[in-house]
């Protein structure tokens, strides 16, 4: 099994300038993930508002989520290495993203009619459950169902270039298949493990004669506290104990002991 390690050069300038400002509020930014799903297109460079943001993205690779400011962005795709010129890319769109939401932006279809497929991604799942959706990104494949082998369809009549709604299921292992509506199996996905508290996207890609799937994790749930930790036990004056000792050693020691003991009893 050959592991293909893809090198992405991610210009995080946009992201980090937000961080540096000290306010990285999620209510100012959206998450955007780019997927290369055009089977005959070369590796691509992605420019956001004229800035090189993703470099040499090959077919079937994804960028992971990038934080971008909410608003409308000029997203343009070039064959990798092509010099940037506004409006000259193989693909261009003004993409509007809302704060606090997450999106998948796929470059889909054959190169001659390459197009963006955009879907909003779920960042929540009922505790203990799993969520999954499928995307039909195989340009020449017919409409398909995805379901349990010998059982019900979870997703019916998925057509290029649709991305279904999520189905929330019990976590567990499923013997799935992609099949034609008449039941003919197109691609087996036996022993699919869908973990609890996890949201998946499964995209069928490539042309129908070499159909395959790429799977992405959209979200994994975990707890977060209501407040930041209180991470200092000292108070400023007490680091100057030399000076304080001269004036009020007894009082200080008495107070410290009291405070120290009380804090640790809590």
């Amino acid at each position, binding site marked *: 099994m*050959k592991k*293909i390690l893809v*090198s*992405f*050069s991610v*210009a995080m*300038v946009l992201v*980090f300038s937000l*961080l*540096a400002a*000290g306010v*990285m*509020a*999620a209510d100012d930014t959206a998450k955007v993930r780019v997927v290369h799903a055009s089977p005959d297109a070369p590796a691509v460079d992605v420019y956001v508002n004229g800035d090189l943001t993703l*470099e040499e993205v090959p077919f*079937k690779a*994804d960028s*992971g989520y990038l934080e971008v400011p909410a608003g409308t962005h000029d997203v343009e795709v070039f064959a990798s290495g092509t010099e940037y010129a506004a409006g000259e890319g193989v693909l261009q769109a003004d993409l509007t993203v809302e704060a606090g939401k997450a999106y998948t932006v796929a470059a889909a279809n054959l190169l001659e009619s390459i197009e963006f497929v955009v879907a909003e991604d779920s960042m929540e799942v009922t505790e203990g459950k799993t969520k999954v959706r499928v995307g039909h990104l195989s340009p020449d494949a017919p409409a398909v169902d995805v379901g349990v082998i010998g059982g019900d369809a979870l997703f019916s009549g998925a057509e290029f270039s649709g991305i279904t709604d999520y189905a929330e299921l019990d976590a567990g292992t499923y013997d799935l298949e992609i099949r034609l509506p008449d039941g003919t199996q197109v691609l087996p996905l036996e*022993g*699919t*493990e869908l973990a609890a508290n996890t949201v998946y996207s499964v995209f069928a890609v490539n042309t129908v004669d070499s159909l395959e*799937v790429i*799977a*992405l*994790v959209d979200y*994994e*749930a*975990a*707890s*977060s*506290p*209501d*407040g*930041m*930790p*209180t*991470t*200092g*036990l*000292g*108070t*400023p*004056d*007490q*680091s*100057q104990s030399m000076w*304080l000792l*001269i*004036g*009020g050693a007894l*009082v*200080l020691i*008495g*107070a*410290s002991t009291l*405070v*120290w003991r*009380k*804090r640790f009893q*809590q």
Partner: protein
Amino acid sequence: MFGENVFNNKLLALSTVFVLAGCQQPIDEVSVRSENIGFAQDEPITVNIQPSAPKENPINGIKRTGIQPSSLKIPAIDVEAQVQHLGVTESGEMAVPNNIEDVSWFSPGYKPGQNGRAVIAGHVDGVDGPAIFWNLSKLELGDELLVENKDRTLIFKVHTMESVPLDLADVSDVFSYTSSPELVLITCSGTYNFDQGTREERLIVYASLVEK
């Protein structure tokens, strides 16, 4: 976590001390160090992304598994600490160790090595002086953070540091999901606020996993 009574007592005691000491204003080292803190990687970074490798079922094995951390090492500032596994305090804050040598991992959150931000907190000072994260503000871009248990060592590289006023800190973002493994270290910074019983800012260090 600080009772009001404790504070009143303490203020009273301190006032007395100041009177005795001639109202000399002491220098607060942590506060001084908190000034002009912050950096962020401003050059393109390279991340390796592995597209679904062909295997029997491409949906399986795409989740990264994290570790239950037992120790944190930061060679750049000579820190070696035991990691406690803690949740929240009664008031819902992230809990912290009740000693100044250990650090705490927010165990209901993401695990180190799993996708998402695993968060570890430690004290900046104790009653008598420096605590485990006293020198956290001296970290620089690219410094390594080692999180270990008996089976695995994970290496994270610092990419961003900021000191954020408490009222502007976006807690849900600091503890949020990311589609790669991150480690976040938190300690106190800024000036001490006697009314709130804590420092007014939090020093937050963000690091990303170095993939083998």
